[in-house]
């Protein structure tokens, strides 16, 4: 009874092997390389391949540039059509909800939601304040070189610069990791958004918030309430929904109310010339900006973890006592 099965199997395997061999002889690597040689595509001494590649790249770039709605208005600008902006919003929103830890998604969502109405409003806020006007005029760029990390480390411990330095070290981040703006059309608006993005770390430092997801949501809510950044408002409303129950409770009871209250009552944070505040006393600066410190998120989490461990231990010991050995 086994014989016909065997024959059948051989009847399948041999033709398959033959077809594979034939296919690899005709379409295999060797055959494709030799075909390319016959067409004179690889080593032809009469053809300048580097120049051809360069021309192809240039043509491709020109073809791509022709599909854009306008000429780039600043360095790194990628002009988008309206439908592309809508797509960017949809895709980056979806990605941000499920992968908020990937900064690239948040960056794209931020630019997709940065409507000109909001940016114009922010610009007016800046223009109505003297240091805001100065920032717009000088357009400073926050990098490690400008901040001089080693200098910050030597500042007195009560200064904002030292607090900021300590925060960077504790969270293991660097001010250089801010992505450039690409999709905002107006150059001034693009600068304002970049400035907002670069100042984000200062908000963390002055409110002593860690970069874990709860801290980020709190800071987003603060930015949303204070500056009206659409992405921040969206984040403050939607991001808690995907958290654990404990975290959500903590946010709704303590941090989000604090963030909204502080954001609405303190001075517009975009108008702060942070680079000049580094040597100021941090409590004086908080007072000047009318910022009150929230409870420390890290200690709160630690306390809860310790409590839980304690309860677990108690439960386990009780269980051991009641169950017969």
């Amino acid at each position: 009874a086994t014989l016909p099965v065997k024959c059948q199997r051989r009847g399948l395997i041999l033709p398959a092997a033959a077809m594979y061999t034939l296919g690899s002889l005709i379409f295999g690597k060797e055959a494709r390389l030799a075909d390319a040689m016959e067409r004179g595509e690889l080593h032809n001494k009469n053809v300048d391949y580097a120049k051809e590649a360069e021309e192809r790249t240039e043509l491709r770039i020109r073809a791509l540039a022709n599909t854009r709605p306008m000429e780039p208005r600043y360095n790194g600008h990628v002009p988008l059509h309206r439908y592309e902006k809508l797509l960017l919003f949809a895709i980056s929103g979806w990605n941000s909800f499920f992968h908020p830890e990937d900064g690239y998604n948040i960056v794209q969502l931020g630019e997709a939601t940065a409507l000109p109405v909001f940016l114009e409003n922010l610009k007016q806020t800046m223009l109505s304040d003297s240091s805001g006007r100065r920032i717009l005029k000088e357009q400073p760029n926050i990098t490690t070189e400008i901040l001089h990390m080693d200098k910050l480390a030597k500042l007195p411990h009560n200064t904002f610069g030292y607090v900021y330095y300590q925060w960077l070290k504790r969270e293991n981040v660097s001010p250089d990791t801010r992505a450039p703006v690409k999709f905002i059309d107006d150059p001034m608006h693009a600068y304002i958004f970049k400035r907002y993005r670069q100042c984000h770390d200062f908000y963390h430092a002055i409110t002593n918030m860690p970069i874990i997801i709860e801290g980020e949501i709190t800071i987003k809510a603060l930015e949303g309430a204070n500056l009206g950044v659409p992405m921040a408002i969206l984040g403050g409303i939607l991001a808690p929904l995907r958290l654990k129950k404990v975290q959500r409770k903590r946010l709704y009871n303590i941090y989000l109310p604090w963030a909204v209250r502080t954001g609405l009552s303190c001075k517009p944070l975009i108008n702060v010339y942070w680079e000049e505040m580094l040597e100021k006393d941090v409590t004086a600066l908080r007072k000047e900006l009318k910022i009150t410190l929230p409870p420390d998120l890290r200690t709160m989490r630690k306390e809860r973890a310790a409590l839980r461990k304690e309860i677990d231990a108690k439960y386990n010991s009780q269980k051991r006592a009641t169950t017969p050995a």
Partner: protein
Amino acid sequence: SVLSSLKITEHTSAKHTEKPEHAPKCQNLSDAQAAFLDRVIRVDQAGELGADYIYAGQYFVLAHRYPHLKPVLKHIWDQEIHHHNTFNNLQLKRRVRPSLLTPLWKAGAFAMGAGTALISPEAAMACTEAVETVIGGHYNGQLRNLANQFNLERTDGTKGPSEEIKSLTSTIQQFRDDELEHLDTAIKHDSYMAVPYTVITEGIKTICRVAIWSAERI
């Protein structure tokens, strides 16, 4: 018998040409260049084998019925045997896989030579004309590629083909000239008088092109 002369008789002993001690060396061939050289030798060997068998077939049919054609055919056939042997040796030397369809080429080529000869001597000449036209063009294409795409860098800073490529090129040039001489001979012996001329020549040209394509790959 007539087939006994198809055996490989010419064993050219590997000639050791004296090289100067510090002769510049060439860079290694790229994968593509090596693949192309393999293909050239495989298809040329198969082609010359085919030619050998075609003239064997023609000679088999015509030599005794048309004695005036005997020396003409013998001359062509001898040249093809030489070509065949040369490429057999090259194939051994470069360890190139022979065409897997070699039995088919043998049978088909003998049948083609004998078959056209059975129609008429003119038809045999038309067959020669068609075959040599395609082969001449194919050799020219190979020569063009060998001339353009083997501009290798040498250790002394100059550029150009290696000795191996040069010798292969001159071999192919010589053989191409031989094949075109066969073409002239065929025309001189009234290939145009073959009936039906167009059907024979175009049919055989197509067969040759398909055979070249297959022998290059399979």
